């Protein structure tokens, strides 16, 4: 491995051996080089973006074709005329409106539970000093690293003993207990960045810790809470293994589960409808993503990579 000094030396040697010494002309060619480099980067990015988005384009065009056009060769690249009726049909074939309602219910309950529980715990970890807080925070970090799938079997057994199978309780109740290690961690990191003077001023005014948490820190934590809310929405909306394990009645299915059921059903050859259903499932998350993009990145940055 070459060290810094060695690398420097080779550069020096090179210039001594008659390699181009910096001059005005080289300066200009270096500018040109940067330009060439940038266009190269741009071309690679465009090609990559095409690869990334082509599946989406194929998804949308397939969803607008009719039953026959999907299987045509040579392929019909553009679905003209567009069969928007596929989107209506999806709702006739499977009660996707029910799936939407069920998923929304789970997601909203999760949001309430997680935004409260995770921020409440995070305030304790970030702003209060008490014996054992470090120990418990290490446990938060530990559970974050643990492969959650390991708990899948015993958790199912416990929920089935509690009689929670085929209800929404397995999705909602655990969320009230801490709201997930990742969310606690993210909010703790955020609360730590806020100045202690705020809390001190409130204490002098006679606020107790609960009031400081609720009235001062929660309003200030809006960006971080937004990030948590987005991750919660995505997890709830996209979760598949949870509904697969805990829901048995078709009317109680979530969107993800409904789509999987759709795929497994007799309509397997109706790729047009299946694609339309996939688009319907994807639209809410895409909308959220476009509307709240900046909170995504800030949320990831907050998890400690920069702070």
């Amino acid at each position: 491995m070459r060290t810094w000094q060695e690398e420097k030396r080779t550069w020096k040697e090179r210039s001594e051996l008659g390699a181009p010494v910096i001059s005005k002309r080289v300066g200009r060619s270096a500018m040109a080089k940067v330009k060439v480099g940038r266009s190269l980067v741009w071309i690679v990015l465009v090609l990559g973006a095409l690869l990334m988005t082509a599946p989406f384009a194929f998804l949308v065009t397939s969803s607008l074709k009719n039953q026959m056009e999907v299987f045509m060769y040579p392929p019909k690249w553009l679905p003209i005329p567009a069969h928007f009726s596929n989107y209506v049909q999806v709702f006739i074939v499977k009660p996707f409106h029910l799936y939407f309602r069920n998923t929304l219910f789970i997601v909203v309950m999760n949001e309430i539970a997680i935004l409260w529980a995770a921020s409440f715990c995070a305030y304790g970890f970030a702003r209060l000093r008490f014996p054992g807080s470090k120990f418990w925070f290490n446990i938060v970090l530990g559970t974050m690293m643990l492969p959650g799938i390991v708990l899948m079997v015993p958790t199912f057994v416990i929920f089935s003993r509690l009689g929670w199978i085929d209800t929404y309780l397995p999705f909602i109740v655990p969320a009230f207990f801490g709201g997930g290690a990742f969310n606690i961690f993210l909010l703790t990191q955020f609360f730590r960045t806020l100045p202690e003077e705020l809390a001190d001023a409130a204490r002098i005014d006679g606020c107790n810790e609960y009031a400081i948490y609720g009235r001062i820190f929660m309003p200030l934590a809006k960006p971080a809470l937004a990030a948590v809310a987005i991750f919660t929405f995505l997890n709830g909306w996209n979760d598949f293994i949870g509904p697969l394990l805990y829901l048995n009645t078709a009317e109680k299915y979530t969107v993800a589960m409904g789509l999987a059921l759709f795929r497994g059903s007799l309509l397997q050859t109706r790729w047009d409808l299946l694609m339309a259903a996939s688009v319907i499932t994807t639209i809410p998350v895409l909308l959220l993503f476009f509307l709240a993009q900046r909170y995504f990145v800030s949320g990831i940055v907050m998890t400690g990579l920069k702070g």
Partner: protein
Amino acid sequence: MQKTAQWPRHRVVFTTISARKALTGYVFISPFILGFLLWFIVPIATSAWMVFHDWNLISEPRFVFLENFSTMFRDELFWQSLKVTAIYSFISVPLGLVLSFFVALLLNTKVRGISVFRTLYYLPTVMPAVAGAVLWAWMLNTDFGLINLLLRTMGLPKVRWLVDPNLALPSLILVSLWAIGGSMVIFLAGLQGIPDMYYEAAEVDGAGAWAKLRFVTIPLMSPVILFNLVMGVIGSFQVFNAGYLITGGGPNNATLFYVLHIYRVGFQYFKMGLASALAWVLFLIVVALVVVIFRYFGESVYYENRATGARDS
């Protein structure tokens, strides 16, 4: 007690205040502690008990001691699922890391439309797993999928992506590379945290683009790389959706991922003890891998701030 009576008065006051403070602290973190006990310790204990029993959730559990483990190790499907998952992990994780690092480097430049590119590259990551699986099953369909249609228009023979047992797993690895957005964004955040002055200093020393990457970017990014590597390995051993939804574990068990195997044993054959044993083995494998990664790569990680292990920029 006599000893308490001898304590100076202010000491007593101090203890009650700190006791009250501790109580407040524990009230705040109590949801987590309760959750940890209820949804972590209780399941772990249940699982540890189930490992030694033969139980289908309905009949009386029967104590079998280590029989679940011997059954498991004699089961061909266990070894098959381990092989599938190991191959998947060892190929898709490094490939995904290199690719997402490369893309993050490109996305960290200041070319035109960069924010659009960032959005487009992240898009596949937010797509619901089921929709993504349905989409890729269609994309890779032998007769009508987009990829084979493109091959056919170029005059190439069609490839039996998900039908050929030798190609099914490589196909799923390729699909996994589509959604590299998660690690990419983390890399990007890390790259943006590197102060410009380091690059300027390197330029003064005559470093070219490669030298800057090799001696500035990669060392400074090593904690992020380690983080993504560990998270990638943990995630790859828990892959379920791709196997369950795209290929159903087939053809001929070529994509029988470990968690899919656990799912079948536990929730289709209702062998709770065997499924728990499988889960424990998975846990031990993942822990062992993480320890190995930290041992071999942890040393070469560069921390700007050794004391906390975190970079503050």
